[in-house]
């Protein structure tokens, strides 16, 4: 792991010199408030990621470089998705992130439409793709996509996966489900695409309906990792499982966030390691391409833990325990930095839905990336002050 240490320093330095307003999105914690006293499943979900190149990409919520992600929930479902824009479009003067970002944003909006069916995530992808065709401003590019929906009615996860993004489900220390990569040939995944006029014949374009679909019942404590190929190409499966089984059944989003952070950091570190025999390199050799080392790419990691709650007193207890959590998360690691908190309360739904964006722009000490604490959520009524300081 010494390579990790080395590269984490590198990352910290990059953090310092880059002008990101934020790097990490903390957990969105959604508690369904629909009526009924039976227990209903939900996901504790956290996301973390890095763009491949900090210099060229601007930070936007929901994006890491060319990767995009969304998560949202309705009373009936938790929905998450990642999309990886194909970088090759840059030479056409097209921002590859725009396509994936639009795809994910549209998915998010579609989830809140009346006729959203949690059991058909493929429809989500295909409707979203159709919306792309309806834009006045032509959006050009292509993207892989993976959407995962938890249907609360029957505690089943429905997924649709197109291309080489994917998910891993870990139950009792073993891989329970894993998505399949869809590739035309090595390093050429299936993709949704909208080519510019005049080069249709040169561009791969797959129908959203060619996405792999999978559904499986989810139990309390299951850990699901939803990530782009930047993770799967760089972290060996065994290492993935080892990290993920640590967080099986956790209820504390902070711990989960730390796991996600460390996965993202590991992936980032390994992707720049020239000597490491990454899964990508192994695959390449299978295809008679001699290479070693990781594959530098944008990285997006979603970690989810299945939980279920019985309706009733949950809302208030979650809200009140917010501050304690934050302090606990800070203390052990003896960090010193200031953070700007911004609260984005979503009052459209009457559920608790907190997203906190943390700015690391003011950070003035190197720190170990794997320990960046990041989850602070709080009901907006008793929102606390925006700055939290901890000392060495």
């Amino acid at each position, binding site marked *: 792991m010494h390579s990790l240490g080395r590269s984490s320093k590198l990352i910290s330095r990059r953090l310092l010199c880059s002008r990101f307003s934020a790097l990490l999105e903390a957990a969105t914690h959604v508690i369904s408030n629909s009526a009924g006293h039976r227990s209903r499943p939900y996901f504790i979900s956290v996301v973390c990621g890095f763009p491949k190149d900090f210099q060229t990409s601007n930070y936007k919520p929901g994006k890491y470089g060319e990767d995009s992600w969304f998560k949202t929930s309705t009373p009936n479902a938790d929905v998450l998705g990642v999309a990886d824009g194909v970088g090759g479009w840059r030479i056409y003067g097209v921002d590859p992130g725009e396509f994936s*970002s639009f795809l994910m944003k549209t998915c998010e909006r579609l989830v809140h439409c009346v006729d959203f069916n949690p059991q058909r995530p493929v429809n989500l992808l295909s409707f979203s793709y159709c919306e792309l065709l309806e834009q006045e401003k032509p959006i050009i590019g292509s993207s892989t996509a993976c959407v995962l929906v938890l249907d609360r009615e029957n505690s089943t996860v429905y997924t649709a996966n197109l291309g080489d993004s994917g998910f891993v489900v870990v139950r009792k220390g073993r891989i329970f489900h894993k998505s399949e990569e869809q590739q035309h040939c090595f390093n050429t995944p299936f993709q949704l695409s909208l080519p510019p006029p005049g080069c249709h014949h040169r561009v791969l374009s797959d129908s959203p309906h060619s996405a792999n679909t999978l559904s499986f019942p989810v139990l309390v404590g299951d850990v699901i990792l939803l990530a782009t190929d930047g993770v799967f190409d760089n972290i060996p499966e065994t290492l993935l499982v080892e990290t993920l089984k640590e967080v099986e059944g956790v209820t504390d989003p902070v711990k989960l966030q730390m796991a996600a952070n460390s996965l993202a950091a590991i992936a980032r570190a390994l992707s720049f390691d020239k000597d490491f025999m990454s899964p990508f390199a192994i695959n390449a050799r299978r295809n008679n391409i001699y290479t070693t080392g990781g594959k530098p790419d944008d990285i997006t990691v979603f970690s989810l833990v299945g939980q279920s709650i019985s309706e009733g007193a949950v809302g208030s207890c979650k809200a009140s325990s917010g501050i304690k959590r934050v302090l606990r998360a800070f203390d052990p690691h003896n960090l010193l930095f200031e953070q700007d908190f911004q609260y984005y309360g979503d009052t459209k739904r009457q559920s608790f839905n907190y997203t906190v964006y943390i700015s690391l722009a003011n950070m003035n000490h190197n720190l170990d990336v794997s320990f960046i604490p990041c989850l602070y959520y709080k009901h907006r009524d008793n929102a606390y002050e925006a700055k939290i300081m901890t000392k060495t």
Partner: protein
Amino acid sequence: MSQSSATNSEDGSKRTNNESVAVDSVIDFKGKHFGLESTSEDSDDYLVSGSEGTMIDVERFCHADYRIEQYAHSVLDFSSQYGIDLSISYTAPNITGRPSKYPEYGDFPQTFAMRTYGAWWDRAPSRLKEIQPQNVSEIPAEDFIAKTWICLWEDKEFYTKPLYIPSRARRFTPPLKRIQLPTKTIRLEFNHQRLHYYTEIDAVLLSGKKFNTRNMQHLLDYYERQRKGSILCKLQNMKFRPICRDNYQNRLQHFLMHDLDKFISVLSDVQIQSIQHQQQQQVQSPSTDEIKISKIGLKNMPFEIMLKIFSYLDLKSLFRVGAVSRFLYDVSTHPLLYSELNLKPYWHLASTELLSTLAKRATILKKLDMSWCGCTVQTISPTEFKKFIQQRGDSLTHLRLNSTKFLNASCIDTLGIVCDNLKELSLRNCSPSPPLLNFSCLANLKNLERLDLFQTVIESDLLLTMLENNPKLKHLNLAFCSVAVNMDDVAQHIAKYNKQLISLDMWKAHFLSAQGLLVLSNCHNLEEIDFGWCLREASLGDSLREFLTQCTKLKKLFLAAVRGLTDRDLEYIANLCPNLEQLDLMGVLGISKERYIDILQKCAKLQLLDLCFCDNIMDYDVALWSRTFKVDIKSCQVPNDFR
């Protein structure tokens, strides 16, 4: 005090004469409150504004403690939108909830945009003539008890005031009329006549005072008393109380019979005297003839002249004038006055009773416009409409039933059977909630010259039969027509049977391919064509050239978002369309600048050129071109940063 603000919206809200530009949408504010932490959970919040004026009772019931702001909860109905039905881009439901994009400025699919802008559609060959021209403009609010609509605001100076549209997101907050009634439904009518380009609306916010639901019963009782009938209601409100003596009826009769003429002549004498006073210098002695003439009142006019005078009155005035006297009633109920009927401005008044009254008077009805009637509240029953059509439908030549909600299958059946003289049939946005309307009897119609099926679900086979049966068809609108229709087949049928076609609108009608375009070149009379969002192929090949060579009369050519257009195609447009007046090339990529200049130079009659989202064009190019060529060039400079 209540205010409605449509964020990012255009400040023009007036009903217009022309259907193609008038757009309305009815928005429902359900009892969801966002701005306030409220204590009441389930009960709906009705909006109440403080009152000034006569009805003081209400104020006592209203709690005026705090203001409440509500965003639109749902869209009940709308007459036009830019996006297709299944989509979530540019569609009407985007207006609900909090603003998603305000205060950003640009083009956002998360907003609600409407189909038209400016007066361009009125200048196209397919423009409509208004039936019975009248003008009403309002934003009425629905009062939930009496089920009537009240106008909250209208722009009276719409055509006179100078229009300045800044390039930024705007909040439009008209000063609304104060109303006494709680409301949760408002209807917005937009006039697009003076819009520069598509305007997108993000959200609608209604703010007012919270109405205390506990006092609802009092209010209900109050309005129940009010509802007893319009005459009784008026009498209650009237301050005038006649002094009742014994035989007052006879006195009134006596006055009407004997004294009224004298009264009028006295009045006219006074007028004459004043005129004399003015003319005193010129004419010294008034001749007796003049006084004789002055005694001729409205009553003495010949019937024909009365008819002529009355023909300038709108429907409301006609009904009112009929209440004056028996003679005026006779004149005002003459069938000639009702040969054209436009109920669209009175959509909020249209009811079953009105229809049965009109059925008695309009014995030679030729043109009927019932657009928007009975749209949210079922004031017109399908059976009554059927009866009306059965009585008066046989001579009908023009029928517009845009956005009507009372139509059911049997209504359409009756239409098809009775109205066989129809020349114009307009069924815009007419798909009721059970989507499959049985239109099959429409196949009986043989004389159609204009068929408008904008946003209406129709079966493919029926459409083809109708095209086959109506060889005189001149104007056909199939924009947003159902996805199930294969437009290539339609194009083939048009080419075979409807060669006189002048205008064809296939906006966002999917599945029209280059092949269909090629076939359409058989319609040599085409002057207006709208292929926006059709022709999704990578390349059109030679079909556009073939089409343009054959159809030389083209005045309007819309090729919005036909992404397969190339430099070559634009060369054809420049060389083969000398009469072109309007050209839409929105969202076409990869065209070189020279081609645009070429078009501007060669199409001398060009007035409108839409180049939004086209690349390779700079701002100063556009400014220069529109100056040199005197062409209105649309180009939206949207910031790169779209998300």
